[in-house]
């Protein structure tokens, strides 16, 4: 800096107006960039959009008519989880692995027309359009607890019919010892399937006595309406005494077979996910505890119940089995 007499500034030293304006623009831009780094993306990069406070009606299905109340003893009288929560907090990796992803991405699924292949050890195999499959089966409401393997839970009013009723209609052979279900495989409709996160198509299975149990249902709706895509439209399994991942969504195939199947999560991590996957507070997931769960909508955790509170109904299915080995 050349020494100057006080009060005397050479014209050449004065920053031209355009230049210092540019500098301000630059600083503002830099501050903006820093803000989006510090505030915007740092926070909002992780999911929820805090700006929209209106009730989101997207994803609501049409009202289901003629739904009868299911057997009282099989439904819980606990308060159902909010519809928004039940439809915006989903594990459905076919639409992304974040729990907000399915509600955002499941619009590409076309649940109509839909048909289900019923094959294997059945008297009447075939590919059945969903309407034909549903026609003879009265729809009933079942309010079930849902316990996810990730230690959170919900209460959902499902609309569906007993799985056993469908299987009986198809006529089982004596070799039908296991039921295997498959989800649709179509990366066009299910963008999450473009990456091999799991061994697609998603596969689940039940032992035949589990499948015939009156608690096991196939659901076509919830909250009195047809299933939203992100909840497994148009047809999904609900087995309330097992961890949620057993309740396979958007089913296109039901196969009856003699040998036990390999399910998707068993293939992914056999030490962490067993075939039975019965809710059990005494058998921890290798990486986290299953003793407690957070009911969505509640702050404090509550204790997890054996068989998700359905022990009276289903514990006898596993009499004599070591549930630590058969987790």
């Amino acid at each position: 800096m050349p020494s100057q007499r006080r009060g005397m500034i050479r014209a050449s030293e004065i920053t031209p107006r355009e230049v210092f304006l540019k500098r301000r623009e630059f600083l503002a831009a830099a501050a903006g960039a820093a803000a989006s780094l510090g505030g915007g993306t740092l926070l909002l990069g992780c999911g929820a959009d805090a700006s929209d406070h209106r009730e989101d009606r997207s994803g609501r299905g049409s009202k289901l008519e003629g739904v009868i109340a299911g057997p009282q003893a099989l439904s819980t009288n606990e308060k159902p989880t909010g519809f928004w929560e039940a439809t915006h907090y989903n594990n459905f990796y076919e639409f992304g692995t974040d729990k907000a992803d399915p509600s955002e991405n499941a619009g590409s699924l076309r649940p109509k027309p839909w048909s289900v292949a019923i094959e294997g050890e059945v008297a009447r195999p075939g590919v059945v359009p969903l309407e034909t499959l549903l026609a003879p089966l009265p729809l009933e409401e079942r309010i079930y607890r849902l316990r996810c393997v990730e230690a959170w839970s919900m209460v959902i009013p499902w609309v569906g019919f007993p799985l056993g009723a469908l299987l009986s209609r198809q006529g089982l052979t004596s070799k039908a010892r296991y039921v295997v279900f498959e989800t649709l495989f179509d990366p066009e409709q299910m963008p999450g399937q473009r990456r091999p996160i799991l061994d697609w198509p998603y596969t689940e299975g039940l032992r035949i006595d589990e499948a015939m149990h009156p608690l096991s249902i196939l659901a076509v709706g919830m909250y009195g309406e047809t299933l939203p895509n992100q909840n497994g439209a148009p047809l999904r399994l609900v087995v309330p005494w097992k961890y949620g991942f057993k309740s396979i969504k958007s089913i296109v195939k039901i196969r009856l077979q003699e040998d036990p199947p390999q399910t998707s999560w068993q293939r992914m991590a056999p030490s962490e996910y067993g075939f039975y996957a019965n809710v059990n507070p005494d058998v921890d997931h290798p990486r986290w505890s299953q003793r407690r769960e957070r009911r969505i909508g509640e702050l404090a955790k509550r204790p997890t119940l054996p068989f998700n509170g359905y022990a009276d109904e289903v514990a006898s299915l596993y009499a004599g089995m070591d549930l630590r080995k058969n987790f």
Partner: protein
Amino acid sequence: MALERKQKARALHAGVLLLCALPAGQLAFAAAQAFSPTPPVPPPLGANPVEFLEHSTGLLALRFLALCLAVTPLQRLGWKRLGRYRIALAPYRNALVPYRRSFGLVAFGYASIHLAIFVGLDLGFDWKAVGEDLAERPYILVGFAAFVILAALAATSTRRAMRRLGRRWKRLHRGLYLAAGLAVVHFAWVQKADFREPALYAGIIGVLLLARVVPALASRRRAGDSSRP
């Protein structure tokens, strides 16, 4: 002039710190709504606000750790002489250095909030459950180890501690790489099937570590060469 420059740098630094605290403010505001007796629909922190708070504060801690580790490499990149050319991204040589401590402390701040949310909101101050988790869940132990390191570094982040520890200070504060590594392991260990996000952070921290190790080895080799008779 020098004084003015210093003041400007301080003002900028204060501004940056304010921005660093902004996510905490946003989260606190949203949490106040989410935990109010009549939360709005859709709830501002999603269906599982405790999980959201836990996840986002953990991620913020990790991001500021990465930012803290990036300061020195950026400083070196941004102030270089290549023959007669000089690359200068910062206004003067050590302009970024004060930010290293700040980002480290901010990371420690978010890690503390993260831990407090886990103990307070998630486990409801059930100290027995805290003990069980520490003893039985390796990913929690690993996360806690990262926090302990950050706490030790935060406690020795003052000028006075720096003077007192002398050369040991530098060695101690290399522990930040260990803390960052443990934080990534902690993050990866809770994933069920999708490891892309932890892999991204592992990559970033790995590159930052290499950016320090490679020049250090090179200069050591140079020093070794020149000391040869």
